[in-house]
C-alpha cells in the first residue's frame, strides 16, 4: 500500500538529529539551569530515537533495551540535577548558571 509519506529510518534519523541539535543549542545558550536540564533530556531522547530507529530497521532488540537503560539513567540524572538545582537555589536564590562560576580560573 502506498502512502503519501513513507516514514522510513531516514526520517527518524533526521528527527533525532534535529532534536539533538535543539538540545545541544539549548545546553550551550540557555542560562536557566532548568532549561539546561530539559535540553539534556532532549539530547538523551534524540539518542533514544536514534537507537530505536536502528533497532527497528535491523530487527534487533538490543537498541531498544539500550533505550530503556538510557531512560533509567536519564531519570537518575534528572534527580541528581534537580538536587543540585535546589542546593544552588538555596545558596544563591537563583537558578541562573552564570551566577555560579566559582570555578573560574
Amino acid at each position: 500500500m502506498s502512502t503519501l509519506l513513507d516514514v522510513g529510518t531516514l526520517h527518524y534519523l533526521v528527527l533525532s538529529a534535529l532534536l539533538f541539535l535543539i538540545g545541544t543549542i539549548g545546553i550551550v545558550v540557555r542560562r536557566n539551569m532548568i532549561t539546561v536540564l530539559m535540553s539534556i533530556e532532549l539530547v538523551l531522547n534524540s539518542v533514544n530515537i536514534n537507537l530505536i530507529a536502528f533497532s527497528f530497521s535491523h530487527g534487533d532488540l538490543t537498541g531498544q533495551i539500550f533505550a530503556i537503560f538510557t531512560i533509567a539513567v536519564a531519570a537518575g540524572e534528572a534527580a541528581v540535577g534537580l538536587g543540585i538545582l535546589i542546593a544552588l537555589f538555596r545558596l544563591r536564590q537563583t537558578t541562573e548558571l552564570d551566577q555560579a562560576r566559582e570555578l573560574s580560573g
Partner: protein
Amino acid sequence: MRWLWLIPVLPFLGAFLNGVVLRDRLGKKGVWMVACGSVLAALLVSVLAISGYLGSEQYSAHEPFEQSVYEWIPAGSMGLDDGSFADVSVEMGFLLDPLSCVMLFVVTFVGFWIHWFSVGYMDHEPGFQRYFTYLNLFMGMMLMLVLGNNYLVTFVGWEGVGLCSYLLIGFYFDEEFPPYAGRKAFIVNRVGDLAFLAGMFALVAHFGTLNYEKLFGTIEAEPALVQGDYVLGMTLATFVTLALFIGATGKSAQIPLHVWLPDAMAGPTPVSALIHAATMVTAGVYIVVRSNVLYQLAHGTSELVAIIGALTAIFAATIGLAQTDIKKVLAYSTVSQLGYMFLACGVGAYTAAIFHLMTHAFFKGLMFLGSGSVIHAMSGEQDMRKMGGLKEHLPWTYRTFVAGTLAIAGAPLLAGFFSKDQILAATWADHKLLWVVGLVTAGLTACYMFRLLFMTFHGPFRGSEEQHHHLHESPPSMTIPLIVLAVGAVFSGYVGIPKLGSIDINVFDHFVGQVVAHVGHGEHHASLGIELFLMALSVVVAFAGWWLARKYYGGDRGLAEGERWAAKFPTVHRWLFNKYYVDEAYDATAVRGTWACARGLFRFDSKFIDGVLVNGSRHLTVGISLLSGFFDKYFVDGLVNLVGVVSQSGSRFFRRLQTGLVSQYALVLLIGMAMLVWFYVVVGLRR
C-alpha cells in the same frame, strides 16, 4: 735458691695486700704486720738463698746462679750493628752472685729494720696504710733492681724505685713543698734514665742480648769487641759506660744531677733512711760495679767517674758544713759518701765501693733513723739551732748516733774506717790529686758530722718550753732498729779488714772480687808501709775534723762560736749555706728555659695553631659556605623559581579556559565531539 724469685714477689704481695685488698680493714696493726711480715719473709728467704748459694757447687766454681722465671720479651730476629741477625729475647730472670748477695742482704736487712722503725715513727701520722704500701712496693722494686739478671729487669726496678721515691717524697701531699720536691726528684732522675736507656739500646743493638752473664762473658773473652770506634769518636765501651754513668749520677745524686736529693728530705724520715741513704741512691754504684767489665775497658769514663765522685764528695761535704737542718746535713753527707763510692769505682776499686756501700747503708741508715727519733721527740722540729742537749733526754738515740758518727767519720776499727780507708788507699795508688780531695773530704766529713752531733745532743737546749716539755726517748719499736743498725755500723767493717802484708783476712774483698773482671784498667794496690801510713793519716784527718767541730760547737758553747766562725768568712758561708747556688743556677737556666720554651710553644699554639690554622680554617669555611650559599640562593633556587614562574605565566593563559560557565564547557564539549565526528566520518571515509 729455688725460691729466689719469691724475694721480690713477697714485698709486692705485701704492697698488693695493703694497697688493694685489705686497705684499712684490719686496722693499723694489720697494716704493719703485713708490711713488716712480707719484708721479714723476704729477708729470711734471702738469707736462705744466700747461704744456699754459698754452699752450692756453682759458688765453688765461681759461677753465678741464674733463675729464669719466664721469657718476658721474645723480640725474635733482630738485625745487629754488624749486619748479622740474632734471636733477641729478654727474660724475667734473677741472678745470684756475690755482688747481688751483698746487695740483697743490705736491702732486705736494713729495709726490714727501717720498716720496723717506721711502725713507731708513723704511728701518729695519717696515711699509715698508704705509707706502708709504698714502702713495700719500693722494697719489691729495689729487690728486682739488685736481683735482675739483665739490664732490662734492673731497669724496671730502677724506674720502680724512682716512682716509689717520688711517691714517698711527696707523701705529705697536702703541704706545698713535698710534692714539688717529689716532682723535682722525678724529673732530675728522668734525665739520667734517658741516658741509661741509650746505653741499653747501644748494648742490645750491638750484642743482641742484655743478659749480664752473656754480655760480660762475650766482652771479657774478646775485649776488642767494645773497643772499636763506635760513635762520635767514642768506643762502644766508652759510650755505654758514659750513658750508664749519667743514669747513675741521676739516681745516686752526683754532680750535676745531685740537686734532688737534699730536697727529697721532705719525705718522712724513715723513707730518707731507706731510699735516700741506704738503698735506692746506691743503685748507681751498683750498676757501675755490675758493669765493671765495660768500665775497665773505658779508661776515659773511669777517670770521669773518679773525678765526678771526688768533686761531689768534697762539694757536698763543704755544703754539709753550713746547713742547719739536721736532715739536710745528712742528705749532703749521703751525696758526699756516694761520691766516695764513685771515686772508688773510678779508680777501679769496685769491691771497695760495694764495701763502702754496705757500711754506709748501716751507719747512714742508722743516723737517719736517729734523726727521725730526734725529730719525733722534738715534735717535728728539724732545725738544729733549736735543739741541743738532747743526750739526757734521748740516751739510746744519742748512743747509737755516736756510733754512727764515729763510723762515718772514720774512727779506727769502726765500719767506715775500713771501707773509707780502702777507697783512699786505692785512690792513692791511682791518682794522687783525687786522693788529696778524698782525704780533705774525710776531714770535712768528721767535722760536719760532729758539728751535727754537738749541735743536736750537746750544749744547752735552745728550743721552746713546750718542745722541752715534750722531749721523750722513742719507744722500743724505734730504739731497737737503732741498736741493731748501730751494731752493724760498728762491726760490719770487720768483714773487710784490709790486707796487711801476708795477713789476708779480707773476706769481703775476695767474695765480691769474684764479680770484678780483670781486663785492662784494674785496681792498684799500695804497699804495706803506704797502707799503714794512709790509715794513720786518715785517722789524723778525722781527728782534726772532730777537733775543729769540738772547738766551735762542742761542750756548752751553743751557737755563738760557730756563728762567729761563719762571720769570719761571710762570702764562703753564704755560698755554702746556699749550696753554691746550684738550685738557683738550674732555676735560671734549665727551669726558666723550660718555662720559656713552654711559653713559646704556648704562643705558637695560640697564635699559629689556634690563630692561623684553626681560626683560619673557620674563616675559610665561612667564606666557602657564603659562596655556596649565594650559589644555592641564586642559581639552584633560581632554577626552582624559574619552573614556578614558567608554569605560573603559562597558567595565566590556560586558566582563561576555566570560565566557570557550564554552558561554555558544554560548547567545548560539543566542538570536541564535532571534531571527532568530522575525523571519523570525513577523514575516515576519505581513506
